[in-house]
Structure formats: structure tokens, C-alpha cells
């Protein structure tokens, strides 16, 4: 592979980088050694980018962890041994990691430790919209947030030094538009840290028993106090005061992150950037008290522009109250708490705040009903096969299973036409939740937990052990497509390939399940795409007693076609015989592979396959009740 330009040791060079690439570059420049995480949109490209740098910067020790808690612990272990370390995750990943995170903050660190939380306003790729800035006051550690890819790179580089100086964990928070947006980035120098890794054997510092923790909590608060004093002079925070008035009033703004960038555009749009005071915050927590006071004292009215929760607003109001300042403070009375802000909203709200006319153009009413374009399982996806086979087995047994779902591509089975999920909250929950559901199930409504391979390794396995131990009996289907597909085809323990593409040790799913205590006769392993066999065996598994595990195995279609291409395998084309097709549309309206389309044939509606997107998996051949789909041998 050619050396990617973002891996070069060429300070001063200007590139276009995605936020996540810029963050990876900042991690490299900051002299980090250990970088770990669990894939999750919008954070996944950070470690993936580091992996492409690793060949040229062999000091980087990278791992995909099996979940975020382990990632947090690995990174903490690195920092404990005096290595600069970083743990990368999406916002909900920090919930998983928080057990380790909350107490690791007590001991503090030796090598710099940065935890990256990529939040997702508008839930573009997430199950919730939580605001992880709250983890700052919760864990009593600093939270920093960049407003552009360039700043992200510089800020994370600096964060390692900051972390070491204050012996604190630093939470680096971003949002989707930062992670997945490109911008000019000027590279900096790659720092080489001289510190030697070693062990610090000091139980009173690192063993969190009550007698130590009581003391540590006080130390933690002292550390926070020191950091708080520095928040005003944090290099990524800045205050510009203006003495100008608009309509007789002095206005001020406070913002951070991506909203700051859009706010500045809005102020430029109205040509008032020079006429208002602006506090741009880089360190959200602890907040820059003195700067906030100065801004408040200077202005008659201020507006706080932040997406999601009123985190900054609450600090500002607290500071205003404590220092008896009566400046009028607006925030969530103006901007919504839920969702991402479109540019139009910034313009409207800014204009209204300063009392300027701004008429947004009325949108032209349209009576065109546009068919929705929801994300779909790929053509040839083996998950569709499993859902289909499960439906057929249920039909045969005249039962209606309650399907407890999980997180991955297969969550898309909730949409039409499969509509195969009844509940889903978080990673691994399919099995955990099924533990109780199984107490309510009946013969007609048995419980089935459906989970992917990577998610099973992540946190499904603990729910399974719980079921074995407590004798909660239900069927678990593990959709083993040997990949963490939704987030970009990352390898996992079941593939035995490491993030660096070197081989690791493969964890054998069957052995793992057996080791959890599932008896041999209650384990099935079938090829997802062999529909007749799948239906037969699923019937068996649905009727069997006890806790059961059905491993439905077929490699992710995207990987399969990649393999075929590499090995020069040409699969035969799959076609619909229009003479045999009676137009029942089972394949299109019930199975729903997107490569199947309706056509007119001799004046009748028939099904047909779009060869440009068909992946030639041949599954639809078994789906057609009239044998109209065939492949050309």
C-alpha cells in the first residue's frame, strides 16, 4: 500500500481530511502509543485510519476491543504503564465503558489518556441522542470539544499533554458533522514521547478500595479545581468583546463545537460578527468561569447556541446567579433540545434575537408523494435469508414468535417487508431482555433472541450465561456473517483477524456457546442461504426445550462478492422465467431483495432481476413458490 498523505511526516502540508482522519492524525502527532475501541458510527474511521498509518508508524499499538468497556480498560492499562493511550467509541459506547471510566477518573493517570465520545445528534446511526458532555460533571474530569477538523487535530494532540500535566482523563467529545465532515487541515509535527513504559506499584494510588477511594475522591476534586482555574486560558477557548450596540443593546453569544461554526456563518451572513461579543468554548467542563462572567458583564442579553441538552446554559445560569449578574440569558427557550439544527434555524433564531428582519422563503407545497428510501439489507444479504426461513418455520408450526432484536445490519429487518423485530434497545439486549420474556412465553408465542456475531461477542454472551444459570429457556439465533458489517466490515474475534490485518486467534463460536453451558443437542449450525435446510432445522430448534442456540452462518454479502472477485469466481446469472412467473410478487413484496423489480411482460406484471445490483446469491430461487427463478449454469 502507498503511504497515505495523512501519515507523512511533513508538517505544514495542507490536506482535505475527514474529521475522523484529522483526529487519527492528531492521535499520531500527540505521541499516543495505545489506541483501542469498538466500531460505532460516527467514530469508526478513527481507528481504521490509524490502522492505515500503523505500517509506517510501527510504534502504534492498535486493537479492536470486543466492547467499549474492555477498550476503556485497555487504554487505562496503557496510561497506568506510562504510555499515552486513547479509547475510541460512539456515545452509547461510553455507557458500556462507564463502569471502568467513572472509577478510572479517581486514580488518575500517568501516561496521557484521552477518551473519545462521538455523539450523534439526530440519531443518524444510533438508537438514542444522549449528550455525553454530561459525563464531565458526572465523572469530574475535563470535557473538550472541537469545532472543525483542524481544531480537532490540534486539540487532541494537546490533550495528551494536558492529561499528563493534570493526571486526569480527558473526554474528547465530537458530533457526527465533525466526524463525517471534511475540511482543510494543516499537518503538524509527529511528537515522539520519550517516556519509558514501566509499572508503578503503588496500591494506595491504584487500588480502589473504600479506604483509598475516599481519599482519591478528594484528590479528584482538587485536580478538578486546578483544571477549572486553567479553563479560562485553555488555548481552544476564546472571548471577543464588542462595545457596539444593535438596536440599543449589547448582545453576546456563547457556543462550542459544530454549532459555533454555524453560528459564526450566521453572524457573517448578517454582517454583525464585529458588533456582538462571542465566547467560543473549547473546554466545556469545567467551564471558563471568568470569561463567562466577563461576557455577562459586558452584555445586556446573551444567547447560548448548543445542540442537545442545556449543558453550557446551566453552567452560565449558575455562574450568573452566584455572581449576581442579571444579564438576560437565552438558550433552550430559543433553540430546541431534540435534533440537529439546520442552517435555516441558526439564521432565523439569530435574526430574531438581535431584532433583525429575516424572512425565510416559503417552501413550495408539493403534492408529490415520494416513496421513502430507507436503508435496506443489501441484495444477497444472508440476514434476509434467516428472517425469511424463520417466517416459514413459524408458519409451518402455526406459531408467532416474539422476536427480541439487537444492533447491527440485521436491525433493518424491522422494516417492511420482513417486519421481523418486536423489541430492541442496545448492544446485547436481545438475549438479556429475552431472559424475562421467556417467563411469559407460551407454545404459540415462543421467544426468539436474534443477535449478530460481533454483538454476541460484545455483550450478548453475558445474557446467555445468565439464561443458562437461571434456566431461562428460549431460542437464540446468532447471525454469524463473520464481520461487523454495519460500521464498515471490521473483523471481530470470530474472524480471527486483527485490526492490523495480521492474524489473531479465532474464537470458535460453537465452543464458546458450549462453554457457556448450552448442551450439544441444543446447538445448530446451518448455512443461512440454504433455505430448505434452514426452515427444517429452525422448526426443530423452535420446538426443542431448554435454552438453545442456532448459529445461522453465511459471510456478509459485501465480503463474499469481494472474495469472489479476488478468486476470480464468476457465479452464474440468476433470472426470472417470465413464462413461469405468475406475478404473485412473493419475491418482491414479501422477501424484498432490492435486486428484484416489477416489469410488464405481454401486458402482465411479472418479476425480474436487475443484473446490475443482483449479487447472484441464488436465495430467491428457493423463495419463489412457482419455481420461476433459475440460474444459468
Amino acid at each position, binding site marked *: 500500500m502507498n503511504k497515505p498523505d495523512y501519515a507523512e511526516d511533513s508538517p505544514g502540508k*495542507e*490536506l*482535505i481530511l*475527514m474529521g475522523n482522519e484529522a483526529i487519527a492524525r492528531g492521535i499520531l502527532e500527540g505521541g499516543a502509543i495505545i489506541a483501542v475501541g469498538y466500531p460505532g*458510527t*460516527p467514530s*469508526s*474511521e478513527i481507528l481504521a485510519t490509524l490502522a492505515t498509518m500503523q505500517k509506517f508508524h510501527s510504534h502504534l499499538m492498535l486493537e479492536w476491543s470486543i466492547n467499549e468497556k474492555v477498550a476503556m480498560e485497555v487504554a487505562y492499562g496503557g496510561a497506568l504503564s506510562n504510555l499515552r493511550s486513547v479509547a475510541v467509541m460512539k456515545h452509547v459506547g461510553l455507557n458500556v465503558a462507564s463502569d471502568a471510566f467513572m472509577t478510572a477518573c479517581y486514580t488518575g493517570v500517568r501516561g496521557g489518556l484521552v477518551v473519545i465520545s462521538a455523539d450523534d445528534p439526530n440519531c*443518524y*446511526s444510533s438508537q438514542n441522542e444522549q449528550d455525553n458532555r454530561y459525563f464531565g460533571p458526572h465523572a469530574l474530569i475535563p470535557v473538550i470539544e472541537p*469545532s*472543525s477538523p483542524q481544531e480537532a487535530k490540534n486539540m487532541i494532540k494537546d490533550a495528551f499533554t494536558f492529561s499528563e500535566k493534570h493526571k486526569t482523563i480527558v473526554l474528547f467529545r465530537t458530533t457526527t*458533522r465533525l466526524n*463525517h*465532515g*471534511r*475540511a*482543510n487541515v494543516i499537518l503538524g509535527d509527529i511528537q515522539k514521547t520519550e517516556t519509558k513504559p514501566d509499572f508503578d506499584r503503588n496500591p494506595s494510588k491504584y487500588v480502589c478500595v473504600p479506604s483509598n477511594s475516599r481519599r482519591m475522591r478528594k484528590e479528584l476534586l482538587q485536580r478538578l479545581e486546578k483544571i477549572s482555574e486553567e479553563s479560562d486560558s485553555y488555548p481552544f477557548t476564546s472571548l471577543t468583546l464588542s462595545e457596539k450596540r444593535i438596536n440599543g443593546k449589547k448582545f453576546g453569544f456563547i457556543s462550542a463545537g*459544530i454549532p459555533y*461554526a*454555524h453560528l*459564526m*456563518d450566521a453572524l*457573517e*451572513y448578517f*454582517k454583525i460578527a464585529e458588533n456582538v461579543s462571542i465566547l467560543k468554548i473549547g473546554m466545556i467542563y469545567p467551564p471558563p468561569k471568568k470569561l463567562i462572567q466577563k461576557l455577562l458583564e459586558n452584555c445586556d442579553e446573551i444567547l447560548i447556541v448548543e445542540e442537545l441538552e442545556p449543558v453550557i446554559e446551566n453552567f452560565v445560569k449558575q455562574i450568573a446567579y452566584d455572581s449576581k449578574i442579571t444579564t438576560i440569558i437565552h438558550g433552550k427557550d430559543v433553540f430546541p433540545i431534540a435534533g440537529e439544527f*439546520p*442552517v*435555516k434555524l*441558526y*439564521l432565523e433564531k439569530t435574526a430574531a434575537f438581535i431584532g433583525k428582519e429575516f424572512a425565510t*422563503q416559503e*417552501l*413550495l407545497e*408539493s403534492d*408529490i*408523494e*415520494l*416513496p*421513502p*428510501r*430507507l*436503508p*435496506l*439489507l*443489501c441484495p444477497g444479504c444472508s440476514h434476509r435469508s434467516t428472517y425469511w426461513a424463520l417466517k416459514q418455520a413459524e408458519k409451518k408450526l402455526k406459531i408467532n414468535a416474539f422476536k427480541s432484536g439487537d444492533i447491527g*445490519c440485521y436491525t*433493518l429487518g424491522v422494516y*417492511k*417487508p420482513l417486519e421481523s423485530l418486536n423489541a430492541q434497545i442496545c448492544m446485547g439486549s436481545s438475549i438479556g431482555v429475552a431472559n424475562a420474556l421467556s417467563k411469559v412465553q407460551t407454545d404459540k408465542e415462543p421467544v426468539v433472541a436474534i443477535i449478530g456475531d460481533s454483538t454476541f461477542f460484545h455483550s450478548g454472551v453475558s445474557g446467555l450465561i445468565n439464561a443458562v444459570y437461571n434456566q431461562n429457556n428460549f431460542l437464540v439465533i446468532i447471525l454469524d456473517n463473520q464481520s461487523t458489517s*454495519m*460500521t464498515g466490515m471490521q473483523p471481530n474475534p470470530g474472524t480471527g483477524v486483527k485490526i492490523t490485518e495480521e492474524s489473531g486467534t479465532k474464537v470458535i463460536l460453537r465452543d464458546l456457546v458450549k462453554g457457556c453451558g448450552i448442551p450439544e443437542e441444543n446447538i445448530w449450525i446451518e448455512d443461512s442461504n440454504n433455505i430448505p435446510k434452514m426452515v427444517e432445522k429452525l422448526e426443530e430448534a423452535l420446538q426443542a426445550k431448554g435454552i438453545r442456540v442456532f448459529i445461522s452462518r453465511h459471510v456478509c454479502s459485501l465480503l463474499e462478492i469481494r472474495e469472489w472477485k479476488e478468486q476470480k469466481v464468476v457465479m452464474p446469472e440468476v433470472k426470472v422465467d417470465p413464462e413461469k412467473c405468475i406475478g404473485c*410478487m412473493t419475491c*418482491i*413484496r414479501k422477501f*424484498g431483495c*432490492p435486486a428484484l*423489480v*416489477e416489469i410488464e411482460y405481454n401486458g402482465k406484471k411479472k418479476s425480474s432481476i436487475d443484473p*446490475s445490483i443482483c449479487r447472484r446469491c441464488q436465495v430467491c430461487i428457493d423463495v419463489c413458490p412457482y419455481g420461476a427463478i433459475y440460474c444459468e449454469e
Partner: protein
Amino acid sequence: MHNSHGYNILTVGVGGTGVISATQILAWAALEDNYQVRTAETHGMAQRGGSVVGYLRFGSNVKGPLIYKADVILSFELSEILRYSEYINEKTSLFVSKDILIPPSVYTYNIPYPSQDVILNHLRKITHHVHLIDAGKMAKNAGNPKTSNVVLIGTIYGAGKLPIQESSLKNAIIKFVPDRAKKINEIAFQIGIQYGRKIKEGFYE
């Protein structure tokens, strides 16, 4: 160019059809012309056949990645542009590919795919600058149907709607395609430019 707001291009289409790579190419070309550049792109779940969008802004002082009103919209699929009407005003130029990708919801939700005329009539009520492009066919003529994104980039350049130098665009295109596809992409770019020029000269709509 809308001075205080830079130049704003929205690229829309369906996951996996080159929307994101088009945005990336344009961003690099803008860098070569010394602009400040910002993009926001759809990655992750929606890329599985969902509706995807790339926002691109460049100018001397752009900060936020999202767009208010677009100067140009490139739609890689006929109907997708309708999802983005809020970004169109009377000054926006629309370059809409004739290519159609039927979403399965047409069958599962029984909502028919709107006809080309219905779509164009609606768009023309908002702006006069609506151009329908047979990008798929031109890409095929270039030698690979996958080059339709490069054809469209060429088209907006040829039509005078892309304030970036031709050489910068060419360099950026070449940066992102594998060696064996460079020639074909250069051809696709030229085919697009020729077509765009014809639009500018009023030969085509």
C-alpha cells in the same frame, strides 16, 4: 458566488452510487484552488441503499459544513432531488441525472415512483435552471457506467457553474481513481464538459 456564504454544492443520490466520492473530489479540487472547504456527508447505516447526501461549501471564509441554499445541486438519481427542495431557490442550478433506482418501498408501501414530468414540473416552479442529464448513458459511452459522478462534475464545470479550475478538478479526479481507471475517468470528465458547454450555449436545456 454568494460572498458571505461561499459557494454551496449539494450532491444527492442513493448509497453506493458515488455521491460521497464526488463530494470528496470536489473538496480536493477546491483545496488546490486555495479555498477554505467544508463538507458534511452521510456515512454509516443510511449508506445501505438509503438516501445519501454530501454538502460541500467553499470560499474565503466558510465555517459550518451544512448548507442554507445551494448554488448547485447534483442529483445522481431522478427522484432523490425532491427530498432536498428546502435547499433550492430561484438561483439554484439543478443537474439531475435521468437514472432511476426504484426503491423497494414502491412495492412494500404501494407508493408509485413519480414520473419524470411530474418531478421536472415541480422543480421548474422553484427555479428555471433545471437540467436533465443522461449521465448513465454518457458514462457508458466513456467506458464505465460507474463514472457518471465524474460526468456530472464535468457537466457543471462545462456549464460554467463550478468556480474551480479544470486542472484542479482533473488532478482531484485522478487522485481518487485506481490507475487502471484513470483514462476512462478522464474521458468521462471530458464528455461531461462538452455536454455542459452545450447547455451553457443553449443547445440543451
